[in-house]
């Protein structure tokens, strides 16, 4: 999770910056939703196509394996049947063409065996057996003449069927072989049997010649499931294979998918005509996914790279879109706040103007009445208590003047949207601004000190808007300092083109991480009491007036705002 956080952090929607201020979860949710939905829309069809490809590949692989097994079975079946048929036909010809008396002759039988070996191969020995099961003649490497087979099952079988092929066995010879026995009915009603031993090597060579892969096997079982040839998977010669003997079929049969333990395999079988042999072939199937992955590695690489690229693009685009949306929402909200703020200030301005106007008229009357009385006293040298009366009337006039200043200040304070230029003495302006909030400073015992450079030129700027700027900063300073703190206001010439006003306090200061965000809209550390717009509007006004604002702050030591303004806006 930490790794994912680190990787995706450059792509995440921007937040207000201050970890103490809750990030807009709405945008996070929108960001996540956009990414998930886009990824689903993009990757689901891709996934479906991959699955379809996987499924088709699987089917093709299974078909391919079934075909291979089918080919092995049909070719080998044909070959083995030919071999068996060839040898059975040869033996049938011998018993038909050679009379019993000739076969009973040692030389003739030996000569016949030699001919068979030379012509067909695989023959080991030949024996002539009469109807009592006595081996009358024998040609071969062993001494089996005179042996009786009457009680052996094959003898009974050949008597019934006329021709018989045995299972593979080791016998006296101690090597795997099988026998082909053929009965011949003599004209006198008696019969004899010619018995030939065939070396199993003849069959094995056919199977080895298939040159099968490690995962493919071909072997022969008998009808009891005993292995007639060695098997790679099922065991050695004459061992129990454990295979359920399949039902008889004239053709080769392929079972496309079967299980052996945990492995999938394709298996098939073919009965070898007129023999007890069943040819078996099986091939282990690869793990479907591994097989698919090995065959479609290019596709998988392409898929992987596509997913990575699409993921990056989706995250980047979603982040870009959400950030744009957020910026747009912020601009919209800022505009609304500005309008609200402007309306509020305009309302305050109108109320102030109305109150001031209503007060000005009675003040003017008081002023005129006091003035008239003063005139009357002044022009009457004998007026009783003339000096005292003049002092009192002057006091009234002074009070009226004080009231008048207040009303004029109220009238001057209204926010204007357009820049209205006039010559402004910054010292007067600062004193005027401080006088608005002077009472609070006085109550909290905050000292406001002025450090005004001599001969600072007046500037040509907008009085109302500058009032608003300085009022905001001085208000912030008063909020930041403790009771008994101090605020220093300095006004000085920067060069021939600009003047600067610094407002420094010894308050709580601004943490470093907040300092770079204080001019951003909606950034506030006053919780529900601040709109986070004060300093952003301040900066906007100063920018509009062609000036600049800078802030230096140290935690628990204080903050100093410096506003530099051009002499002419």
């Amino acid at each position, binding site marked *: 999770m930490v790794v994912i956080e680190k990787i995706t952090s450059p792509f995440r929607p921007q937040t207000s910056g201050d970890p103490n201020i809750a990030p807009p979860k709405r945008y996070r949710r929108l960001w996540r939703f956009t990414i998930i939905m886009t990824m689903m829309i993009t990757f689901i069809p891709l996934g479906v196509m991959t699955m379809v490809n996987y499924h088709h590949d699987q089917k093709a692989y299974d078909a391919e394996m079934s075909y291979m097994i089918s080919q092995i079975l049909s070719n080998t079946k044909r070959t083995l049947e030919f071999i068996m048929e060839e040898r059975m036909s040869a033996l049938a010809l011998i018993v038909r063409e050679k009379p019993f008396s000739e076969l009973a002759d040692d030389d003739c039988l030996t000569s016949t065996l030699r001919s068979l070996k030379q012509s067909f191969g695989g023959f080991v020995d030949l024996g002539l057996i009469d109807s009592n099961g006595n081996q009358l003649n024998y040609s071969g490497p062993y001494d089996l003449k005179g042996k009786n087979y009457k009680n052996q099952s094959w003898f009974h079988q050949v008597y019934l069927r006329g021709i018989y092929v045995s299972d593979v066995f080791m016998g006296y010879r101690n090597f795997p072989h099988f026998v082909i026995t053929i009965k011949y009915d003599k004209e006198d009603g008696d019969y004899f049997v010619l018995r030939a031993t065939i070396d199993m090597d003849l069959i094995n060579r056919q199977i080895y010649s298939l040159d099968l892969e490690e995962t493919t096997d071909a072997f022969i079982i008998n009808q009891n499931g005993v292995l007639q040839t060695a098997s790679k998977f099922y065991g050695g010669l004459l061992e129990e294979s454990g295979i359920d003997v399949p039902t008889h079929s004239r053709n080769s049969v392929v079972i496309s998918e079967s299980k052996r333990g945990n492995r999938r395999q394709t298996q098939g079988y073919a009965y070898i005509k007129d023999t007890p042999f069943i040819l078996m072939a099986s091939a282990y199937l690869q793990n479907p996914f591994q097989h698919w992955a090995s065959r479609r590695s290019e596709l998988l690489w392409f898929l992987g790279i596509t997913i990575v690229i699409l993921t990056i693009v989706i995250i980047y685009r979603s982040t870009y879109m959400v950030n744009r949306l957020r910026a747009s929402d912020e601009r919209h909200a800022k505009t609304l706040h500005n309008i609200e703020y402007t309306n509020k200030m305009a309302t305050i301005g109108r109320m102030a103007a109305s109150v001031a*106007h209503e007060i000005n*008229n009675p*003040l*003017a*009357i008081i*002023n005129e009445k006091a003035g008239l009385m003063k005139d009357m006293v002044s022009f009457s040298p004998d007026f009783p208590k003339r000096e005292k009366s003049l002092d009192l009337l002057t006091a009234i006039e002074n009070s009226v003047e004080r009231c008048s200043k207040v009303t004029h200040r109220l*009238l*001057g304070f209204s926010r204007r949207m357009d820049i209205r230029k006039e010559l402004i003495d910054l010292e007067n302006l600062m004193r005027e601004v401080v006088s608005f909030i002077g009472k609070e400073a006085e109550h909290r015992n905050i000292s406001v000190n002025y450090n005004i450079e001599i001969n600072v030129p007046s500037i040509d700027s907008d009085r109302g808007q500058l009032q608003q700027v300085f009022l905001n900063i001085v208000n912030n300073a008063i909020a930041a300092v403790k009771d008994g703190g101090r605020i220093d206001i300095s006004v000085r010439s920067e060069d021939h083109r600009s003047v600067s006003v610094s407002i420094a306090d010894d308050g709580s200061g601004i943490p470093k991480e907040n300092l770079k965000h204080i001019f951003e809209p909606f950034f506030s550390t006053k919780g529900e009491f601040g709109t986070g717009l004060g300093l952003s509007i301040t900066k906007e006004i100063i920018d509009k007036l062609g000036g600049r604002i800078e802030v230096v702050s140290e935690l628990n030591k204080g903050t100093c705002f410096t506003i530099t303004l051009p002499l002419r806006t």
Partner: protein
Amino acid sequence: MDKIRTLLVDDEIELITTMVERLEYRGVEADFAVSGADALEKMKYAEFDVVVVDLKMPGMSGPDIIRAILKNYPKIPILLMTGQGMSLEGEDIPKGIVGYLPKPVNLEELITKMREAIKANG
């Protein structure tokens, strides 16, 4: 300079009468009118060097009175009194005003402005 003859126009009768009395103490021949119609009527029968008009008045407003006076007496200098402080921002001020004074009016300043206006008028 001859005695200044002035007409003060304001609906605040307490204020205007006191101002007239004080101006007379200072050698200014002053009369007053409490409305635009009253002012125009008085100007028919008497000659004035300068007229002082309050900005905000019920009925015919200050600017309307000024326009009416200037229509009949285009050369007469007119001073404006205002309870709006030093700013005339947003007010409908007709051309022809030669100066304005915030209320409460400083009488000495008013007389100075009257003299300057008459002098400028020739």
